[in-house]
């Protein structure tokens, strides 16, 4: 290993990691169930192709504090991340083990003192631990998305995901163009006054655009009628 040049602090090391309870197959299953559930406005009809699943240990500062007579444990990420759900991580009674040799652990880059101003209570202890997360990518149409699964609790931290289009665009296009096309044709043949009808129809369509377009907002009924 190369020597650390002068002036550069030694890297922060995790004292332990939280033991993962969920394997890759189970993590994928959880994600599939979540994607296929009807609780989120996803695209259920499109085929979802799963990609890579990677388990990473994210370094977290674990602060043990005594606040108002109760013991409080606060977790804060020890590396910069754009992933959602990691800022206010909650966890109770997690089993901590020694760092496995093959652990894919991200480098901690933030000192514990950075978070002191936002912590309350009397400091009792603090340690740097790794929290395992499954990062699973999936593809819908031509876009790639990712979801994080807590490898201990199985909780999902949702990231950017596909959103169902609640509009039937083909139907909207047909309704908007065909009647006015026929009416315009008739107006030229018979009377220009019929163009007033065309204009009125267009205003009606624009006014009632939600009725024409946003028509399938109803959730699909489940097999059991739920």
């Amino acid at each position, binding site marked *: 290993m*190369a020597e650390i*040049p002068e002036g*550069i*602090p030694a890297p922060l090391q995790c004292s332990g990691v939280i033991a993962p309870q969920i394997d890759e197959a189970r993590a994928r299953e959880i994600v599939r169930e979540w994607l296929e559930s009807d*609780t*989120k*406005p996803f695209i259920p009809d499109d085929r979802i192709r799963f990609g*890579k699943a990677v388990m*990473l240990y994210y370094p977290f500062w674990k602060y043990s504090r005594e606040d108002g007579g109760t013991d409080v444990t606060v977790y804060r*990420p020890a*590396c*910069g*991340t*754009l992933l*959602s*759900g990691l*800022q206010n991580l909650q966890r109770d009674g997690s089993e901590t083990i020694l760092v496995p040799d093959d652990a894919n652990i*991200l*480098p901690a*880059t*933030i*000192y514990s003192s*950075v978070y002191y101003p936002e912590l309350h209570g009397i400091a009792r202890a603090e340690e740097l631990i790794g929290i395992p997360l499954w*990062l699973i*990518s999936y593809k819908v149409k031509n*876009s*790639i998305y*990712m979801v994080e699964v807590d490898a201990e609790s199985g909780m999902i931290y949702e*990231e*950017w*995901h596909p*959103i*169902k289009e*609640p*509009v039937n*665009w083909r139907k*909207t*296009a047909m*309704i*908007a*163009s065909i009647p006015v*096309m026929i*009416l*315009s*044709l*008739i*107006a*030229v*043949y018979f009377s*220009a006054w019929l163009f007033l009808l*065309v204009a009125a*129809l*267009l205003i009606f*369509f*624009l006014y009632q*655009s*939600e009725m*024409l*377009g*946003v028509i399938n907002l109803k959730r699909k009924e489940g097999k059991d009628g739920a």
Partner: protein
Amino acid sequence: MGLERSVEDQVAEFYYKAKITRGVADRTLRTWFTKGIKAPDLTKCAEVSEMYLLYLPFWRFIAQGKAIACGYSEYTEQTGNVIRNIFEELIDEEFIWTECACDTGKYGIEKLWLDPGGEIPYIRGSVVSMEPGGSAIEASRRGREAVHDLIQNAAEKRIDILTLNKSFLIPKVFELVYAPVWIAHYQYKGASFTAIVDGVKGDVLGGSSPINLTARTRMMILSLAIGGILIGSSVAMLIHTGPYQLAEMFQIILLLLGIAMCMAGYPAFKEGKTFVASGTMQHISSLRPAVRVPKQLTDHEILNHGSTILQCPFCGEEVNQPWGEVISPCKKCSHLLDITADTVKVVPYDVAKPDLLSKVAMEGVKADFIPFWRFDVDFEVTDKLAGGDTTTGLPEIDGKRSYYICAADIPRYLAEPWEIDMTIRNPEIVEVITGHEGNYLPILINQNTARELTEFLYLRYETEKPGILQVLRYNFTVENSRIVYIPYYKEQGSHIPGI
């Protein structure tokens, strides 16, 4: 590898202090919700689940771009006359290139939006920051290439046909800058979105939000209905003109216009998204925090690294490569050394003795010894053409002579007149063998850059002569080069040469 890594770690790091508080960022976000074609009830229904301050790293390369471009542009008048405008462009500006040093994935932040100034030294681990990824050396190379392109584009902007085109780049700063942003993750009707707020100015830099579907539907209805009216009317008129006496051509144009509106309107609004976002989400694998990866060494470089310890060729003292274009003296024997990743070259130097006149005039004042590169050059001009009146009383500086380029950190507007003056005068330099007491300024321009500046000095001198330069072909040969420390006396903010 160790050497490369240590060089990479020496890149200066700075950060901008966040000036926007969480409350202000939240208010900015709420205002952003009401702007654009976002969902109308976004302000009411959006729930911010997380909002935190994060520093994003950016590579920043600042360079002085110098270019000479000559040529002409032609245009033909209605009468058939061809008008030719001849141009002589001189570019001498500062160019800044920035690149995000981590992956911001879907948010699409690629360039630094803040101008230089107001940064403070960055201490690792002291703020929540994304780890910079990739290699500093590679980023520096990319920056150099990008700035070269910027210089070229600036020089060639007005000229269609180039007859002379030379550009040079003088690197000034290569650094890692951290810019603060507030990351806001929010939920809207079960879907997750993110927005990024600038932590210095308080603007929204990027992010995603649900779109106003009603507006999108209405736009589609409007475009297709107008298309339908045009198609219907034009078809009817083509079959039976009725009271409308329009030319057939016009009717066909109307028909085509209607078809085009339908064909363009349908896919444009159908393929639109339910959310608006900046950037893409192509690099899923790099969404995890980046890790600094040193430059991938070539086989040749690995061989050299494996067998070479960088040493002073005179005293054998082990030396380290400094970051940037610095000529540093050996700590043991004080010889000037030009250290690159693979080699250490000794740079010969002289110290000029202040002349008697300046010694008497500036008695008691300590001289600043400013380093200059002195190139013994043979400038052989083979072809030259200039338009307009070219009568000049200025001396010629081609042929064999010494060119002087200031190598210290002196503003170029001050240094350039000194360089021209000494290049024209070619002063007799009396060397001091044992050195002279004074303040010796560090050398911040290496030989390659100085050589480019020499060529530019000549070209600049030629363009500043009367007339518009069009063609200049020459052979430029450097026969010898060395550093010369020239004494200057500071008096009331100005420098008085001691030779």
